[in-house]
């Protein structure tokens, strides 16, 4: 489990994250949602230590991450898998080398065991047989799936996904969402997904935190969000006419 307690962050005199607290539960798909620029990616970067925290605590199973020494932080990070918005695959390495990379760095597996693990991860994300392709040869959806395979290669306890659906068509988005959810359940991972895709919220959001202007504004279940009376969240959820129609249709039934 990961818990954030009263975390805040400013860039210059601009307060980006304002006193946010939340518990991200193990074995569940935890979502942080909000409009663009609301501070959700900053919260995630504060949690993994890519930004320094101004105030508050980030507890990984009780360990306050920001106060740990460099070596201790590295030990915690070895348990983290992360899917970046753009994939962040290493351009100079093949898909196989990308997925094998954390195993090369942190395990003493034999080459055969590593290959077995790589094949297992690629199969999980439906990229079996694509081992020798370079990231430049992959489509957007394949890159995200490959990044997901690399993220789970070293059996992480915590999985962070930064806008996994951005730039993908609805069908591929559903594939990625389902993958994230099934991996979370299968390996009992604490998964945190940053998104503003309402389809993802409803489909996989087991625990949702809505961030508005850097502040925690609403939390609940992905299904509950459609029943909200919170005006800012209503604005966000029903920003598109399509969602309103879906909502009305559901209510009429």
């Amino acid at each position: 489990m990961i818990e954030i307690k009263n975390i805040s962050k400013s860039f210059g005199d601009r307060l980006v994250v304002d006193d946010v607290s939340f518990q991200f539960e193990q074995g569940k798909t935890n979502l942080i949602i909000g409009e663009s620029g609301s501070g959700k990616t900053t919260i995630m970067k504060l949690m993994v230590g890519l930004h320094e925290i101004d105030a508050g605590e980030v507890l990984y199973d009780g360990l306050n991450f920001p106060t740990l020494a460099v070596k201790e932080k590295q030990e915690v990070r070895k348990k983290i898998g992360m899917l970046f918005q753009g994939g962040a695959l290493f351009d100079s390495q093949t898909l196989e080398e990308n997925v094998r990379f954390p195993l090369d760095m942190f395990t003493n597996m034999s080459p055969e065991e590593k290959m077995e693990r790589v094949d297992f991860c690629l199969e999980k994300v439906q990229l079996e047989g694509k081992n020798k392709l370079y990231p430049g040869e992959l489509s957007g959806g394949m890159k995200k799936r490959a990044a997901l395979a690399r993220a789970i290669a070293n059996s992480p306890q915590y999985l962070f996904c930064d806008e996994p659906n951005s730039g993908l068509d609805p069908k591929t988005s559903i594939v990625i969402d389902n993958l994230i959810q099934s991996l979370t359940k299968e390996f009992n991972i604490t998964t945190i997904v940053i998104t503003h895709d309402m389809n993802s919220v409803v489909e996989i959001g087991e625990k949702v935190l809505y961030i508005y202007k850097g502040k925690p504004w609403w939390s609940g279940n992905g299904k509950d969000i459609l029943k909200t009376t919170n005006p800012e969240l209503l604005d966000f959820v029903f920003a598109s006419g399509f969602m309103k129609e879906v909502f009305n249709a559901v209510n009429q039934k």
Partner: protein
Amino acid sequence: MNLFFHLGRYFILIKRVFSKPEKMSVYGKQIIHEIDNIGISSLPIIAIISFFMGGVITIQSAFGFTSPLVPLYAVGFTVRESMLLEFCPTIVCLILAGKMGSNIASEIGSMRITEQIDALEIMGINSAGYLILPKILAGVVILPFLIAISMFLGIFGGYVMGIATHACSSYEYIFGIQAFFEPWKLYYSFTKVITFAFLITSISAYFGYYTHGGALEVGKSSTSAVVYSSILILIFNFLLTQLFLT
């Protein structure tokens, strides 16, 4: 203030670069890769430049030595001294600062803006060490070899051009390149090369590592890497020359 900011950040980065590697075998493979990437790939350009510069120095020397009081073996002597003391260790390193420096800064800069460096950090890897240490070690190891080849080809180029243009005879040239040879000058030259190799790789990596923004900033980082590496090569060339030759 800006200078002190960059100096401080540079030394903090260097400290991170030289911290204990996570896994030596992975770093070893990276060093071999970098030796090929930044070293061996520079060989053709170095060979061409050195060969022709040796030839040009030979012709210019022969053209300048019109007095009968100056023996023709002075041509070979001049080529050797120019190549060993200045052209190969300094001018070739300046050329390499352009080639290697922009290569290193743009590679690391692109990794920064595409979040590949963040991905390394999240995995618990010291990204500075993993990306920069192999480049520095590869540069420090391979550049002396490249410069030795450059010295040989420069002197050989002078010989070929000297004979071809009748600037001097084979005997005079060979006598000239052996005359008054002081081996400690090689020590001076290679000390310069190792220093310049460290400067080129570490400064270029520094500018690449702290790139922020997009493609435009990667270009700016590459330019800064080449400019600052070149300036520092010239400053250290002066300091080392003062230290060794006075």
